[in-house]
């Protein structure tokens, strides 16, 4: 236990909160996070005791938590906070939902930098998954509304200033957008929590900074998108221009509304495009506020338009004849429809971020404390609603029993409750359909003979809360092992050899993420190259640095987001060729 090598980092977005226990900070949180937390707690009537907090830099991702409940040691460089609050345990009734700290301001479509009703005046209900009741009505966009938005985006692209600004000016506006998002990150996070149940503190202290960071990262790319001058096979002068692609349709899911919006919008804007964005029907609110803030920051009219509605709104975008490109994140099933619509309309290029069934592989030499906590976060973070969730936990036979025991203990400590309450780790599933789907997978797991280690039931009778659930002795052909559950259900699978676990990991139709827990350089090199997955984490999980490209193999989609790679999604490459007379060289 003494000096563990700094190998563990839970989801960077997180603060793992435990009632009546010190908790670790992720390497991506800081003194500011701690201060913010302690400011919040008294407002909610909780006593908060902070021990001395030291500055922690990102590079020392210290493994500072311990699996043993008896030893709490303060490591240098990491602060700890003891929370004295009443735990909401998995078996307790959930209380009446806490009121969101921010009222909902914007519920209409955002076109040409103004809020407008849908042409038909229709709205749709946005449901609070804690109460199962309607929180607010939001404008519903039909084909004519999508049309209006596309027209605005087209005009902004063909005639407006945005693509005609030098990159450095776009950068200035994007940095101002980031500043405003930062000022409003609590409000944005509250909207997401209200919409889909994300734990509020994780949203505002973890995911929001990452989203804002993406805006700043791509602000930096605005003036660095370069083409090339080219060697030729004859007397020609040739070069490429990397042009903005035009009107971009961005269709988002509900599981991380703020972050995924940043992931789509920031690179598209940086390259000089205009956007028609559709957030998921479960989570329309934060996108509307973000668009308003972008306009305040100086984004010209028509550059960022938001149309809220159901899946059909998204399909109108995918099949629109005047949208130049569509980028979609969501389920594999809908991804197929989007791609077909794109093909059948104007052959607009598509990139897709779809589902996953990512293996989380624990070798015998893994740091078991880190493995248990990482594997826990990998499946349970955000109520299991992550495309990259580590949803097949492969454990080497030599440490299988030990792992199960510890994983069970960890899951049983997980605090499920109102996501606005400090100390809660797990909120409700996003909506009724998701809830039903997860419960049916749990039933399937039981029916197909997997061994239920813990959980498996609903929490309370109101709100879509599900107990953290673990199945063991899961076989490859079970539904819970093959299909994406998108819920807090861990499936633990025993393996023997490296070749076997590679082969079984790759058997999935998906190929989004993977995690390898081992200290052995050879195992790491072999396994990382053998896995058919777009992101492989080694001895950590969930780190989303802006420079690392993100995307899937196989049915998990194609194309890469983040990093320099994302720029290619939002540019059109033009070659220019002309003859050259008497060239001094070729």
């Amino acid at each position, binding site marked *: 236990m003494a000096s563990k090598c700094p190998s563990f980092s839970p989801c960077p977005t997180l603060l793992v909160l435990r009632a009546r226990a010190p908790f670790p900070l992720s390497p991506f949180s800081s003194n500011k996070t701690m201060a913010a937390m302690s400011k919040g707690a008294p407002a909610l009537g909780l006593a908060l005791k902070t021990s001395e907090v030291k500055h922690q830099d990102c590079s020392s991702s210290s493994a500072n938590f311990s699996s043993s409940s008896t030893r709490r040691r303060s490591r240098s460089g990491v602060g700890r906070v003891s929370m004295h609050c009443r735990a909401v345990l998995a078996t307790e009734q959930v209380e009446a939902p806490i009121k969101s700290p921010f009222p909902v301001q914007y519920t209409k479509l955002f076109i040409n930098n103004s809020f407008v009703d849908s042409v038909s005046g229709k709205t749709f209900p946005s449901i609070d998954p804690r109460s199962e009741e309607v929180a607010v009505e939001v404008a519903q966009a039909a084909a004519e509304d999508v049309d209006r938005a596309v027209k605005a985006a087209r005009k902004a692209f063909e005639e407006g200033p945005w693509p005609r600004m030098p990159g450095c000016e776009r950068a*200035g506006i994007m940095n101002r957008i980031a500043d405003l998002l930062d000022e409003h990150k609590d409000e944005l996070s509250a909207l997401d929590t209200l919409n889909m149940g994300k734990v509020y503190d994780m949203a505002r202290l973890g995911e929001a900074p990452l989203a804002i960071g993406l805006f700043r990262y791509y602000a930096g790319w605005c003036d660095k998108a370069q083409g090339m001058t080219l060697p030729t096979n004859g007397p020609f002068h040739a070069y490429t221009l990397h042009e903005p692609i035009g009107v971009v349709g961005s269709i988002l899911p509900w599981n991380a509304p703020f972050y995924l919006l940043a992931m789509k919008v920031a690179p598209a804007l940086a390259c000089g495009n205009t956007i028609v964005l559709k957030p998921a029907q479960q989570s329309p609110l934060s996108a509307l506020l973000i668009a308003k803030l972008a306009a305040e920051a100086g984004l010209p009219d028509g550059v960022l338009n938001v149309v809220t509605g159901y899946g059909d709104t998204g399909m109108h975008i995918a099949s629109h004849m005047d949208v130049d490109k569509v980028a979609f994140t969501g389920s594999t099933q809908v991804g197929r429809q989007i791609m077909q619509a794109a093909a059948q309309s104007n052959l607009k290029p598509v990139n897709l971020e779809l589902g996953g069934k990512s293996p989380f592989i624990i070798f015998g030499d893994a740091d078991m404390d880190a493995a248990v906590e990482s594997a826990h976060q990998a499946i349970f973070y955000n109520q299991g609603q992550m495309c990259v969730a580590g949803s097949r936990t492969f454990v080497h036979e030599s440490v299988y029993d030990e792992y199960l025991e510890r994983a069970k203990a960890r899951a049983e400590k997980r605090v499920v409750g109102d996501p606005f309450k400090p100390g809660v780790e797990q909120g409700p599933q996003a909506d009724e359909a998701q809830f039903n789907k997860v419960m049916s997978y749990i039933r399937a797991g039981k029916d197909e003979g997997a061994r239920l280690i813990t959980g498996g039931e609903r929490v309370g009778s109101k709100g879509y809360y599900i107990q953290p659930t673990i199945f063991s002795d899961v076989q490859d052909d079970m539904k819970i092992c093959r299909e994406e559950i998108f819920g807090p259900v861990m499936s633990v699978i025993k393996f023997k050899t490296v070749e076997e676990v590679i082969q079984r990991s790759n058997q999935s139709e998906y190929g989004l993420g993977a995690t390898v827990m081992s200290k052995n350089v050879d195992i790491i090199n072999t396994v990382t190259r053998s896995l058919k997955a777009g992101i492989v984490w080694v001895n950590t999980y969930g780190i989303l640095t802006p420079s690392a490209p993100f995307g899937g193999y196989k049915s998990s989609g194609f194309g890469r987001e983040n990093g320099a790679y994302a720029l290619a999604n939002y540019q059109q490459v033009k070659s220019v060729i002309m003859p050259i007379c008497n060239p001094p060289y070729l």
Partner: protein
Amino acid sequence: MDSGKPYEQARYAELPLMSRQFRYFAGWADKIFGTTGPSDGIHAVQTLHEPIGVVGQIIPWNFPLVMYCWKVAPALAAGNTIVLKTAEQTPLSAILAGKLALEAGIPPGVLNIVSGYGPTAGASIAEHMDIDKVAFTGSTEVGKLVMAAAARSNLKPVTLELGGKSPMIICEDANVDEAVELAHFALFFNMGQCCCAGSRTFVHESIYDEFVEKSKARALKRVVGDPFRKGVEQGPQVDKDQFHKVLGYVESGMEQGANLITGGGRLGSKGYYIKPTIFTDVKEGMKIFDEEIFGPVQSIAKFKTLDEVVQRANNTVYGLAAGIFSNNINTVNTLSRALRAGTIWVNCFDVFDATIPFGGYKQSGIGREKGKYVLESYTQVKAVVTPLHNPAWL
């Protein structure tokens, strides 16, 4: 104040360039990529682009703050620490900039600024055994000393931005009025004290006479005076040495038979002011045509064919920049490839966007500043190699 440059020029032309440099390179800080690469055999190969370490930077007096920004911003973005020496003529602005950097949060010791003379402070940096890299902007003569000192001491890599004698080529299809104005700006800007000044003006014979006449008129209109006064285009030369050097070249021009058509001497009796000066009938062999004057002395020569002007333009030890004035695509393409210079300005001059690499061929220097290219100068490449067993692919 230190350098005599017109206040309006510094305030409105140069200052925006400076903050722009810092913002541009701030954007590069988290985008310095290495590679993972193929190998010839069964190895995993990665490259890491690491900060090079302690960087010594020696800057000149002609654009004190702009030069400071060109040097400091990329070096910091790449994660280095800096010891920067200002020119003895212009020590003040960098000190203020450094203080502001501290206020902005730069940790102590990352940016250090020393003022002093070349043979002492500058040489000391170039020779220092614990400085990992030196970047110098200044004269070719001193650049050679810096490089030799770097070699003698610890073989620290060197980048140099040195002198120039850049050709400004006015082709036969040029609009003469526009060409005159651009050529005037290319030479006279900053009292002629630019490494990349367009200091050999080649004009096609078909427009030569008109060009010369209009250039003279333009030079006579140039407002020379106190740089703090509004509307002044040209202040004094930076110091007594430069002043006498320039006047010396003017005399040699007259002695060697060039035709003085305007200016040619001091303006007033106090302050290092020199009249905007133009020589015509200038040719190779004359000092004013071969050597860098660094003053407000324009030399205009006549040419007939493109081949001829290419050969004459390249006939210099320098190779910093060149200007081409033409709308003909073929002329532009041919000349821009044929001229041996690091920056070719076509129908413009002195465009210094942060994104555009700048540097010299031949004795105008080594390496490039600005743009993505400068990052190479401030990083060290490390390859990491590990064997692979049963690789799934190679």
